[in-house]
């Protein structure tokens, strides 16, 4: 009398993009968008296959009738949670925190230029021999 759903195996579930339309198939432009959001450099064939399997696996949720059901984001939803007073109780540890970063200048974290700025700089770069002057 088991009503457990079968667990899809990752094996053999790989190529979901051939043949009939697969709701789990992820179009290329969407992959680019996701990559820009996720920033994990996973635009590979393997990354895509994994994503499609993950989407297909999640699709099993659609078998559940949830009409009229409120979404639940915490098991403590019915409780008044404790909030502490809105006052600073600790801090003054900037040096300690800056010490954890790979690169800092004075009291700043250092980031490379943003995408747009990097593009601008590379298109406006002076020839190498003019730099030092």
């Amino acid at each position: 009398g088991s009503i457990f759903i079968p667990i899809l195996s990752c094996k053999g579930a790989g190529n979901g993009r051939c043949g009939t339309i697969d709701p789990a198939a992820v179009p290329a432009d969407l992959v680019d968008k996701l990559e820009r959001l996720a920033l994990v450099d996973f635009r590979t064939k393997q990354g895509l296959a994994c994503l499609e399997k993950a989407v297909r696996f999640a699709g099993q949720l659609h078998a559940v009738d949830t009409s009229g059901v409120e979404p639940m984001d915490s098991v403590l939803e019915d409780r008044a949670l404790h909030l502490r007073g809105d006052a600073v109780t600790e801090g003054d540890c900037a040096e300690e925190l800056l010490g954890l970063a790979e690169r800092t200048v004075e009291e700043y974290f250092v980031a490379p230029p943003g995408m747009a700025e990097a593009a601008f700089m590379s298109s406006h770069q002076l020839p190498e021999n003019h730099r030092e002057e």
Partner: protein
Amino acid sequence: MLSLTLKEVSQAFREGRISPTELCKKCLNRIQRTQHLNAFITVTQELSLKQAQQSEIRLSQGVPKGPLDGIPFAVKDNFCTENVKTTCASRMLKDYTPPYNATVVQKLLDQGAVLMGKTNMDEFAMGAGSVDGTFGPVRNPWSYAAPYRAQTGASSDSDWVVSGGSSGGSAVAVASLTSYLALGSDTGGSTRNPGALCGVVALKPSYGLLSRHGLIPLVNSMDVPGIITRSVSDGATVLGVLQGLDIRDSTTVPAPSSLTDLPEDFDIRNICVGIPKEYHAPGLSEETVVQWSRVADLFERAGARVEQVSLPHTQYSIVCYHVLCNTEVASNMARFDGLEYGHRSTMDSSTEVMYASTRHEGFNDVVRSRILSGNYFLLKQNYDNYFVKAQKVRRLITDDFRRVFTSGVDVLLTPTTLTDAARYLDFTQEDNRTRSAQEDVFTQPANMAGLPAVSLPVALSRRGLPIGLQLIGPALEDKKLLCVAQWVEQRVAFPSISDCGDIQESRKDTGMTEREQTSAV
């Protein structure tokens, strides 16, 4: 001495049969001799000895801080420890040394407990085997004990079985007698799963009872620090120390009662035990079913009421978890960008390039694929279809439990895992997602609903490996749950690993990675 329970050691200290320093040295020595299990990422030898000496002074002056003073403990490497590396078994945090202690760690230190080190795990706690961390897989100590060796004729080194996960190192630390208690974390079963496979008691308390401050988050609404011990009563002692409101974690709730010792003679006749019929799942081993029935019969013969119950939506728990976990991971992992702490790539032509290459270099494929699919589920066009849908299913799963518990059921009795521990070679035939779905199938629903659950070992399988059963109780009824668990523990007579032929000691041919484990005293 090493196989004693926490209470017995505390007694031995008071009677002067052993001192905290002697015990600490014994444990360090044992860590050294069981290095092949790969349970520890960092061993804090110098610090351990220093803490043990301080404890010794307190004990000799007759002013111990409490029942944990001088007791060696281990901590999963996703809890922040001040001035001690905290890596999450990831390249991303390989050299990260936090400037503060997690609340649960601080509470143990405040009680005089002695930190032995940080334990191995699946990277960022994403896994169910402790095979997917950057420091290599954790080995189950029962692989080297006499019953497994004799029953399976296992001889070659490749026959070792996994510890379960993701808190495998913590379960192994307790099972292999190098620590008397260990902290794990439990989001989908990560404490109970290795607890069951390694033959130790593993408690996931009610959500909110223990502070998450300093626990590097996986899924904020389900993460709970887990407690691994050798006996139920030890688990209750540790829970009593750790529970309660924390000003630094607004999702903590006040403890319903101060946890006094569990009664030795709990009256089981007033208890109603529910057996959820949906837990008869495909893949459940026959031997586990036999143990499940055996314990149900124990209850019945002792006069408890045993009833079959139904949790119709529990079957969707794993899929629901898959969506909720990946979405929260996508959001939680955004903090790792190489700027403020952790690994930073040298590719720095732009901020975005640096972020992406840092995360590519720092995270393993499991983490990256969860981030990617989490972002997919969170896209505007998918948000309602996946994320909100999963949140609705979560309510249905939670309501199932509520219905059963308000109908008069006190505890649910289920298996913890489908089978005993798999051989590493077999386990790694499937990918991480598939394995997590199989391994967490019985444990995950309790996290959905925030319920307390405990796994305890009940027997050795034909292969000579531990089989665990799980008890689940209503929210914040942790004490009653432990009373029932102790009642079972007293009757199943699970053998100690030290009575099963000692663990084979570290050998040269295991091919384990060399770690900065300085030699023990």
